[in-house]
Structures are given as structure tokens and as C-alpha cells.
């Protein structure tokens, strides 16, 4: 039963990854893509959480922490880049 729950969580997260990847490819403007990248990072944090439960290796939580940190820094850096006049139209 517990295995099925883990499998279901993996399946839902995989579907979410696919959907947000579709938005990353489609996303009409650069900020849309940045939002999609941010969601991808936070989905990966969720994946790591499920992997901690599935494998019992709690050291993976450190990876989740670092990933959340770098995703935040990347989002801030993208926002600064856009605001300070980087490449504006995403053609």
C-alpha cells in the first residue's frame, strides 16, 4: 500500500514536470520561462522529498536545501537581468 502511495506521488510529480516543461518550451515571453524554471526547481525539491521516503537516505535533504537556494538566486538574477535592460523581447 505504501509503495503504491510513493508510486502515485512520483507519477503526479512526473506529470507536473512534463506540464511545466511544456510551458517552458511554449512560454511566449522570457519571464514566463523563468516562472516555469522556478516551478521546475521546486518540483525537483518535491521529487527529492519523495526519494528520501522511498530510499530512506536522509542525506538527500541537503540537496533539496541547496537546490531551493540556487533556484531562488537564479530567479532573482533573471529578474535583475530583465530589469536592468537585458534582452527584452524573446523572439
Amino acid at each position, binding site marked *: 500500500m505504501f509503495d503504491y502511495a510513493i508510486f502515485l506521488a512520483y507519477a503526479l510529480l512526473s506529470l*507536473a514536470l512534463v506540464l511545466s516543461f511544456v*510551458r517552458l518550451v511554449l512560454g511566449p515571453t522570457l519571464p514566463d520561462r523563468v*516562472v516555469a524554471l522556478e516551478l521546475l526547481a521546486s518540483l525537483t525539491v*518535491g521529487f527529492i522529498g519523495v526519494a528520501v521516503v522511498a530510499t530512506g537516505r536522509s542525506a538527500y535533504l541537503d540537496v533539496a536545501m541547496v537546490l531551493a537556494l540556487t533556484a531562488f538566486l537564479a530567479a532573482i538574477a533573471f529578474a535583475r537581468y530583465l*530589469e536592468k535592460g537585458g534582452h527584452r523581447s524573446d523572439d
Partner: protein
Amino acid sequence: MTEGLTAIFLVAGAGFMLIAALGLLRMPDLLTRMHATTKAGVLGAGLIMVGAAIYIGQLTVVVKAVAVVAFLVLTAPIAAHAIGRAGYFVGVPLWSKTHTDELEGRYDPETHTLESAGKPGQDDVGTGEGGRGRDESGR
């Protein structure tokens, strides 16, 4: 007991993250997309972390999971604010059915100054471009 609770938290968290991704795909413009991903995404990741902390149950793991959740809750609004702000300045189109855009015509993206609709011409920073959608009837 522990396994049942963990399973509930994991599946609920994954479900919320799926809702976030669905919102990201289906919502019509940048701001509504961020509205979906920021809140539902953080809630989903937080629920999964709570599930992991319950399942392992050691103090160090609980502290790490709490740290991850606190970090997500602290940083997600800041990142969303920064991206939304940058997107607005860059000129990302809003949804065609957007009801109210209070900054429209009152914000100078070059100098980052805000003109008050009530008393136009008060600030000398936003030079030149007077009358750019300014609300003259407000005086």
C-alpha cells in the same frame, strides 16, 4: 500509522504540485501563472517535506525539513515579486480581460518613479513625458 500519515502527505503534496503545473500551463498571462505556481508549488513542496520528516522521524531530519520549508516560504514570495515586477517593466502583455491596472500610465520605467494621479507635475524626476495617460479629472 507513520506510513499512512506519510503517504497522505506525499500524495497531497504531489497533487498540489500537479495543480501548480496545471495552472502554469493553463493560466492566461504571466501574473496569473505566477499566482498559480508560487502558492501551490510551495504548499506542495512543504507537504512533501513534512511527509519525509514524519517518515524518518530523527531530529536532524526534522530540522532539515523544517529548514527547507522555511526557506521556500521565505524566498518564493520574494522571487515572485521580483519576476512579476521585472515582467511588468519589460512589457509582458496582461490578460485581455484584466480589470484594473493601477500602474498604467503612472509609472516611469526609466526612473522607477510613480506619479500620483491627484497632483500631476509635482515630481521633477519624470521629465518630459507628461500627459501620458494621466488622469486629469482627479483634481
